[in-house]
């Protein structure tokens, strides 16, 4: 039997449907609070998800009359780190315009405070609106953007390796706290920036954090999980194979979901929400149906992809359905795996130990 699927959930605002907040179990004002983050990530962990991606980006998450604000997802993940024990915490963070040196240190620290459960979902907004917030010029085309993302990933990877695991020696014979031969400058020069290094954060527990990216953004060989997109469930296995042919290590895919809940069919829920603001199709398959429909869809993908990320329409309704009616049977049947307490995200995903590029053999 193939390796079980790692199930992921995307958490952003009150859910992916732009009108989700109208069906949330709390007033709008309670969204941007510590309590909300603790409750939702805790529920996702209890449900058995391998990881949660936390939505982010340079621009507001939506437009009036819907949600227009969000707490920085890396800060959310750091807050949740010590409060959780199993779930991977994967904030969506921009590769553009932000200082790569800050990003690398922030992710390294996130990995420390979560004891090796951090990952990075790469986002790249390069347009004029995002650029204007930082005072840089926008990227002229997709190729320039891809090159920038590749450079930013490379410098992050170098900085995460810039301390060897055993660099702190506390040697009283020579009074040295560190062995500086085990610290390494990144010495990176890219197209738009350069970074000397080293990181100021010691090597993260995972060595290298799993990096996730949507297919088409960068060379799949640069990241750990390439998320492929196909218009139908049936087309996903082919897209996954193609991504592997192009060098993808692990392959993930996205499913939008709306589930029957509390005696109300998913289609009726969706119609009510769409009456307020239509949920535009992104091109990913959408499962609007019963828990059983969703279990079948995930089972269909077993053996074809490594990660299935669920994009819930309304977190407060669909996440409890997932926790009670979807994941238990999938876990029982061995279709999905749940992380062990204390496991690193690399371990949960089946990624091997990350060898330090600078360590002498």
């Amino acid at each position, binding site marked *: 039997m193939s390796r079980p699927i790692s199930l992921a959930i995307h958490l952003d605002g009150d859910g992916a449907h732009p009108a989700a*907040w*109208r069906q949330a179990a*709390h007033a*709008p*004002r309670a969204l*941007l609070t*510590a309590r909300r983050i*603790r409750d939702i990530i805790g529920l996702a962990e209890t449900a058995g998800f391998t990881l949660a991606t936390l939505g982010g980006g*340079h*621009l*507001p998450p939506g437009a*009036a*009359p819907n*949600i*227009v*604000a*969000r*707490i*920085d997802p*890396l*800060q*959310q993940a*750091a*807050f*949740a*780190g*010590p*409060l959780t024990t199993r779930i991977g915490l994967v904030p969506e963070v921009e590769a553009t315009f*932000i*200082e*790569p*040196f*800050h990003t690398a*240190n*922030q992710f390294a*620290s996130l990995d*420390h*405070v979560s*004891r090796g459960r951090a990952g990075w979902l790469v986002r790249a907004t390069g347009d004029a*609106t995002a650029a204007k*917030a*930082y*005072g840089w010029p926008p990227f002229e085309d997709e190729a320039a953007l891809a090159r920038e993302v590749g450079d930013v990933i490379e410098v992050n990877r170098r900085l995460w390796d810039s301390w060897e695991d055993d660099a*702190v020696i506390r040697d009283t014979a*020579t*009074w*040295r*706290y*560190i*062995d*500086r031969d085990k*610290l390494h400058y990144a010495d990176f020069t890219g197209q*738009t*920036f*350069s*970074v*000397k290094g080293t990181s*100021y*954060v*010691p090597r993260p527990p995972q060595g290298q954090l799993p990096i996730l990216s949507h297919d088409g953004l960068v060379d799949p060989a640069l990241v750990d999980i390439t998320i492929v997109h196909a218009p139908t469930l049936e087309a996903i296995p082919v897209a996954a194979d193609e991504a592997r042919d192009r060098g993808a290590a692990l392959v993930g895919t996205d499913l939008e979901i709306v589930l029957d809940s509390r005696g109300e069919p998913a289609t009726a829920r969706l119609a009510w929400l769409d009456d307020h603001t239509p949920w535009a199709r992104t091109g990913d398959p959408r499962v609007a149906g019963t828990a059983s429909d969703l279990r079948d869809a995930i089972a269909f993908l077993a053996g074809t992809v490594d990660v299935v990320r669920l994009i819930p329409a309304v977190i407060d309704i669909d996440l409890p359905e997932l926790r009670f009616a979807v994941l238990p049977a999938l876990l029982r049947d061995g279709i999905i795996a749940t992380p062990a307490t204390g496991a690193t995200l690399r371990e949960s995903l089946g990624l091997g130990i990350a060898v330090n590029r600078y360590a002498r053999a």
Partner: protein
Amino acid sequence: MAEPARQIQFGVFFQGVNFSTVWHWPESGSQTDYESFRRVAQTAERGLFSAFFLGEGLRLREHFGKIHDLDVVGRHDAMTLLAALAGVTDRIGLAATLSCTFNDPADLAYRLGSLHLLSDGRAAWNMVTTHNAWTGENFRRGGYLDAEDRYTHAESFVKAVFAIWDAWQGEIADRRDATAWADIQHPLAIQDEYYDIEVPRLLPPVPGGRPVTFQAGDSAEGREFAVRHANVIFSAHPEITDALAFAEDIRARSRAAGRPEHDLKTFPGQSFILADTLAEAQEKARYVQESQVTPETAVKYLENFWGRDLSEYDPDGPFPDADPVVQVTGSTRGSGFQLAKSQELAKTWRAIATEKNLTLREFVIHQTGQGIGRGLIGTPVSVADEIAQYVERHAVDGFNITPWLVPGGIDDIVNDLVPELQNRGIYRTAYEGETLRDIFGIPADSPSFAPVPAGIL
């Protein structure tokens, strides 16, 4: 404004790098493990401290072009770590030192604003300036800022960040059946000498106002900057005479700027050595200083000012007779070492060493003890008496305590010193009010919390 109640407050400065933290004792714990931070922050909160404070160092210190290897090194991104402490603490302030030079207003405002929301209004920002090209090598913009421009740039930076925090319009709905989630938010345009940006509004403000701001630079320019923008000064003047002069200077500058004179709080860095008897405390202090200034550290300390190899000198022998080969020290050993006038320093120091008959290492212990190393030494009772003098004369509003041991370095302060201070009525017995501003005793109408006026940018 009435003079505030005469009490002392404490913060704890988890320093992360330098030789003041003793790393080679059995009690010396991890400098980077989350548990060390949780232990210190929760202990500080049990002791009713006002803030847990993190420094910043955006490039590892170097010595003659190589990474300096004798001191504690390695720390965390401050805001990431503080967010991880927000869920295991309730009231203590969470203060991050963040450079105005190597951050973007949009990014810093967003991340620190996020910490502020996550912690129910407990975020604080120590606004520092950095200007050296050596640090700039880690950043997109490189070493773009000259030393003389660092405060004019910081002025622009801080106003931009404040403006972003203040820019949210209206309220987020408090009813589930509201017709709209919030009012429409337009991007904020900022244009001045340094910035031409348009920042989307991503966060509402926290009820109770912006993060509390710290300032730490000691120059006249730095002090003026504090009077304009800070709530608290993390000063370098812990000794009482010095502290009084500093406090008077800040009050005078406040008056001149039209700011109430007790509005801006002073929190010098301070360390404590506590023991059961005075003799034991003195003995402990000597032992701590010898542990801080190892033989190797003593030589390297002088080398940094001399700009040359001094390894031929015995740390337990006489002060070096060689002269420095540099005029001015560089920036690669951190801010405490920058731009010292080496030749003059060497003459002065050699005279002190000769006069007091000190070996090389004894001199460095003596010299560094003038600053961070000495602190308040004694029994909990005697130190509480000393602190009562600071309070009586209003020399300081608080001390930002630099523990020389991690993670247990403030245990005796919380267990033994705080109760002595409480017995004297000069230390809080419960946290005040609702917000971090209440804890620091900064009035809600402090000019430092006034919105950035429209058109200032």
